[in-house]
């Protein structure tokens, strides 16, 4: 095409609607969050600048615990997602009859309205009538009903399991796609040399999907860190704060108690962590690909 300047202008014109929209609905609120975090904004119309007071306040309260809890929650959720997802992808990659159907059956948690899937989990966790407690009693593994969401410890794990459930289809399908892009010749060569199935997995499949695993772990980390719906629907951060992650904490402060300034300070902390993860993601993905190219 002829003039590059013209082309650039045209491209920018094409981009403008999307760009302006994102600036208005995402970038501006992001700046506004930072701004608000230094004020005592609340329900009333006016507010003033209060410096670092909000930050001092949240760290004097229990925010450190919330941060630690969020990281523990996220760590277990992401790790289990990766393990279950790899397991699922290996199984769905096996050339057995019916695998096309099995792949379809993997997808519902992902495409169904998230909240509705979580309602169903809520019922499953019910102590008296839910499936998990019920089946465990029927098989005499436990003696009495267990109300999974009623105790801090079990609620913590129950929310992780549901988060894993939501994330597993994506991880599985993504890793499956990575496995299917491995050249068949590698397997054929290995097979000819007498390599067994497990050996082939360990020496070919696994090393070849490591880039996909790393990419997916980071994406999953970001998504899990942001996870709101699951905890809010199942426990609302309870019992007694045992499932209160940073995002739930922010929501409770800002929307529940109308402390916008303090909530914004918490949101800023979340943004800082997210930016770090985001940087790591771009770094790692960039490195993986330049490494592949060389």
């Amino acid at each position: 095409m002829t003039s590059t300047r013209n082309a650039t202008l045209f491209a920018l014109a094409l981009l403008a609607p999307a760009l302006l929209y994102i600036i208005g609905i995402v970038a501006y609120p992001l700046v506004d969050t930072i701004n608000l975090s230094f004020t005592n904004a609340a329900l009333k119309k006016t507010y003033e600048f209060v410096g670092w007071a909000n930050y001092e306040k949240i760290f004097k309260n229990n925010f450190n615990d919330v941060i630690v809890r969020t990281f523990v929650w996220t760590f277990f959720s992401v790790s289990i997602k990766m393990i279950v997802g790899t397991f699922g992808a290996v199984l769905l990659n096996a050339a057995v009859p019916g695998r096309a159907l099995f792949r379809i059956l993997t997808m519902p948690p992902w495409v169904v309205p998230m909240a509705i899937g979580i309602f169903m989990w809520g019922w499953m966790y019910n102590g008296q009538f839910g499936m998990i407690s019920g089946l465990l009693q029927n098989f005499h593994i436990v003696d009495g009903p267990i109300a999974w969401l009623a105790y801090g410890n079990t609620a913590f794990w129950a929310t992780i399991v549901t988060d894993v459930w939501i994330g597993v289809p994506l991880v599985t399908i993504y890793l499956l796609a990575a496995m299917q892009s491995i050249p068949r010749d590698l397997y054929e060569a290995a097979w000819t040399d007498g390599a067994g199935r497990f050996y082939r997995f360990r020496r070919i499949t696994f090393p070849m999907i490591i880039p996909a695993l790393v990419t997916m772990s980071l994406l999953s980390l970001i998504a899990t860190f942001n996870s709101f719906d699951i905890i809010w629907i199942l426990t609302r951060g309870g019992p007694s704060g045992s499932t209160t992650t940073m995002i739930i904490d922010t929501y409770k402060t800002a929307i529940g108690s109308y402390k916008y300034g303090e909530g914004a300070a918490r949101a800023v902390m979340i943004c800082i962590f997210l930016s770090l993860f985001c940087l790591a993601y771009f770094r790692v993905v960039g490195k993986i690909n330049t490494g592949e190219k060389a």
Partner: protein
Amino acid sequence: MTDQPLNIAAEKTAHPADDLAVVPAVKKPAKAVRAMIDRYTWYEYVAIYAGIFVFLFFVLAPFIEGFMVSLKPLSRLFSTPYSFWPEQGSLTAYFTMWQSVPGFWRYILNSLGLSTVITVVVLIMVVPAAYAFARFPFKGRGIMLAGFLAVNMFSGAVLLIPLYRLMRSLGFLNTYFAMIVPGVAFLIPSAIWLLRTYMMRIPRELDEAAWVDGASRLYTLRRVILPIAMPGISVVAITTFIGAYAQQFIFALTFNSKTEFMPLPIGLFAYFGRQEVVWNELMAASFVGISPVLILIVFLQRYLVAGLTAGAVKT
């Protein structure tokens, strides 16, 4: 040139998904070795199917349980000991729920309507943007693309406070706009991503031929690129729609309190909080509510996989 590595990165991440989309399990004539690699002994078959059973049971358990609950009469539902199979099961709940969940139609229509509007708005912005990213090597392209991606990293929940204030000052609180406007923003990035990858595969020669023939750039986009990109645009439309349908929660929960505007998940959530929950009917209602997507995945599975894995950048 600093933005170059990022672009390559982008290419590669989306790659496995594309393969799956373009080559829908084409069966090549089996060579001897291939056939033998894929031959399993009987105990391997048993192990694989047992593994798949466990895996799928985990994935589908809530739906199975939900379906069983929807079949159980209320009296059996709250009885111990627990029984997995519905005794005296019936589909009654599927008929009575229309009275017990008043406005259920309204919720479903709201959900479908919101998702449709969101999808249309997203497409209007994304089609030109994706074309710009796919074709024009303008300055700062890599940075901008990365910027769009970064949007995905911040969920609506983090930005809720300023968004709430923004919706309030625009007068959007308790209207459909309060759910549409922020909903659109968080679906734009992955849609751009997906469509850009698709458009980059359209041969550049087509644009150039149109250019030589004296067509303007806009005309080329409208008359040459758009028709060819239609399949890609449809995939983006479907995935955006599903994304919009699946993620109706936090904005609707926070920005709208009017029953008549509630989408299905929030409408049901309001019921789940009550004491005298009619669980079998609510489960039945949930099933009716998710059936549109369940039907979609059966028919459009292949496209969904492509779309959603490319959108993996999102999630």
